C-alpha cells in the first residue's frame, strides 16, 4: 500500500540544511495499524506529512497503491488526498463558522458530490458517530471529544484507504482519548490503513506495528498481538 524508498526530507534553517528524515525505507500494507513514536523533533510528523502528500520528499520515491505519487503535480496530489487519504489532527482543525454537519460535509463539497447525496451521507455518519443531536452546533459549542469525533467523521466520509492521525488524543483527557482511539481502531476492522503519530507510549502501544523514530530515522520496530487489549492479559 505505502512504499517509501530511500526517502529523505531536509529543510533550510537559516543557511544551514537540517535533515528531518534520512533515507527512510518503509512498507505499510493495506489494513495495517501502525503507530509512529519518538521524541519531538524525531521527524515523525514530517513522515506523516509525506505519507499524506502535504509535503514532498527532498529525495527518494513514494509509491501509494503501486503508483509513484512523488512526481504528481499539485492538482493530482490533491485528488489523491481527496480520494485516498483522511487526516485527523491534534487541534481538530474544524472550521469555526461551520456547523458540525457542514464540517463533515466539507470533503464532499470539495470533491463536487451532488447536494442530495451529501446530505444522506452526512446524516448517516452523524448517526453512526452519535452526533445527530449535535449536527447544527458549531465547534465552539461542542466538547473536545465531540469535536474529535466530528473530525474523524470528516476524515472518513470519503472512505479513504489511509487514515493519518497526528496526536489525535493530544488535546483530550484520558477517558475521551481512549474513546477516540476505539473509534479509530474500529476503522482498522473495516480494512482502513491507520497510521497514528504519538509520543504517548500508551497510545502507540495499541498499534499492531510500532515504529520508533530518532533523529529522522526509524530505529526500531515492535509488534503487538493483533488485539491490543489482549496483550496485557497474556503478558
Amino acid at each position: 500500500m505505502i512504499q517509501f524508498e530511500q526517502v529523505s526530507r531536509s529543510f533550510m534553517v537559516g543557511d544551514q540544511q537540517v535533515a528531518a528524515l534520512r533515507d527512510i525505507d518503509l512498507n505499510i500494507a493495506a489494513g495495517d495499524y501502525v503507530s509512529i513514536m519518538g521524541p519531538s523533533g524525531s521527524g515523525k510528523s514530517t513522515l506523516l506529512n509525506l505519507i499524506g502528500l502535504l509535503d514532498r520528499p527532498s529525495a527518494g520515491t513514494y509509491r501509494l497503491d503501486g503508483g509513484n505519487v512523488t512526481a504528481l503535480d499539485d492538482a493530482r496530489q490533491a485528488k489523491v488526498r481527496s480520494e485516498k487519504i483522511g487526516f485527523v489532527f491534534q487541534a481538530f482543525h474544524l472550521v469555526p463558522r461551520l456547523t458540525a454537519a457542514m464540517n463533515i460535509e466539507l470533503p464532499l463539497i470539495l470533491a463536487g458530490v451532488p447536494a442530495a447525496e451529501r446530505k444522506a451521507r452526512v446524516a448517516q455518519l452523524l448517526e453512526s458517530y452519535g452526533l445527530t443531536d449535535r449536527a447544527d452546533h458549531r465547534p465552539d459549542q461542542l466538547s473536545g471529544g465531540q469535536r474529535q469525533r466530528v473530525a474523524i467523521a470528516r476524515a472518513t466520509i470519503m472512505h479513504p484507504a489511509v487514515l493519518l492521525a497526528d496526536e489525535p488524543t493530544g488535546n483530550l483527557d484520558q477517558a475521551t482519548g481512549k474513546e477516540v482511539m476505539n473509534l479509530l481502531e474500529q476503522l482498522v476492522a473495516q480494512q482502513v490503513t491507520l497510521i497514528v503519530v504519538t509520543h504517548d507510549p500508551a497510545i502507540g502501544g495499541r498499534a499492531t506495528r510500532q515504529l520508533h523514530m530518532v533523529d529522522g530515522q526509524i530505529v526500531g520496530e515492535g509488534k503487538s498481538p493483533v488485539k491490543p487489549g489482549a496483550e496485557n492479559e497474556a503478558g
Partner: protein
Amino acid sequence: MKPVDVAQFALGSLRGSRARTLLMILAMSIGVASVVVLTGLGEGARRYVINQFSSLGSNLLIVFPGRTETAGFGPGMLLGQIPRELGLDDAQALLRSRAIGRIAPLTVGSSQISRDARNREVAVLGSTADLLEVRHMSLAQGQFLPAGDMRSSESVCVLGAKIKSELFGQTPAVGALVRLGDRRFRVIGVMAGQGESMGFNTDELVIVPVASAHILFNTSGLFRILVEAKSRDAVEQAKRDAEEILTRRHNGERDVTVITQDAVLATFDRILRALTLAIGGIAAISLAVAGILIMNVMLIAVSQRVREIGLLKALGAPAAQIRNLFFAEAILLSGIGSVAGLILGEIGTRVIAQIYPSLPVAAPWWAVLAAFGTALGTGILFSVWPARRAARLDPVMALARS
C-alpha cells in the same frame, strides 16, 4: 467543486466576518454611487442646456454683426475696425429668402423705468411682433407688440412679470403709462413668468418696438437678428441665404456671422459630455480606492484563515480551487457593493431631482454600466494577489499555525 457550492462557501465566509464585509460593501457602494450621482449631475446639466436651446425654437438661426474668424488674423483686427452695423433694412431683406419664415430683430439697452414714485433700472429689448413666436414666449395679459411696419416707433411696451409686480403690485398694468428714459410708453401687455432662458430673464425685461428702442438709445444698429427657418430641413438653406443676402447688401463683404442652433448645441453638447466624463473619471478614483481596500481585506482574510486554507488543502482542495474560493469572495463583495451602490446612486439622483426639479438629473446608461463594470473589475483585479497567496500556502506550515 460545483459553482453553487463555491458561491455558498464564499458567502459563508463573508458572513463569518460580518463587520468587515459590511464595511467593504459600504466602501464599494459609495464608489459606485458617486459615479452614478456625479455623472447624473453632469448629464443633467447637459440636458438642461439642450432643453434651454430647444426652448428657443428648433429652427432658429442667429445673425450678429462681425465676422468671427476661427483661424488666422483678419486685417480688421490690425486696423481696429468696428464691424459694420446690422440695420433694420438688413433684417427686412432676410425675408426675401424662401427658406426663412419669420425674423425678429433685437436691440438691447438699459434704461430707467418709472411709474409714479417707483423707478428702477431695467433692460430694454427692442423687437417686433414676431419675437413672441420666434422665441416661444407667452403673454399673461394684454397683447404683444403690434404687427406691421417695423419702422414705426409706437410708444407702447410689454412688461416682464417681475417688472410688472414691482411697479404695479396687484393693480392692473395694461393701459397704464410708464416712463422709459425721457419718453412715456403705454403698457399693452405683461409677459408670463417663465424664468431664466439662455441668460435672458424675460421676467425682468421691458419689450418695446425696435424703432422706439432705436430712438430711446439713439442708435440704428441691431444687436442680433433672430431668424426662424420655415422648417428644420430648411435651416441650412436659410443659413446660406442669410449669408448671401447680407454679403450682397454689404458690398460683397462677409461681415456677419450666422450660427444655427444646431452648431451651438453641438458645441455645448461636446463640452458638457466631456465634463460628465471628467467628473465620472474622478468619481471612478473612489472605486479604485475601494478596490485597494478589498485587496487589503482579502489579504487580512487570507492570513486570518491560514489554518482553514491548510485544512482545505489537506481535505483535497487543489491550489486552483482555493484561489477560486477567494476570487468568489471578492466577486461577491464587489458585486453586492455595486448593486448597493446603484441603489444608493438612484436614491441620491432622486433626492437631487427633488431639490432641483428643473435639472433633469439622470445617470447615463454608459456611466451606470461603467461604474458597475469598474467596481467588479477592480474587485477581481485586486483579489488576484491575495487569492494567489492563499493558493500557494504550504499546507504543513498552515496547519501548524496556531
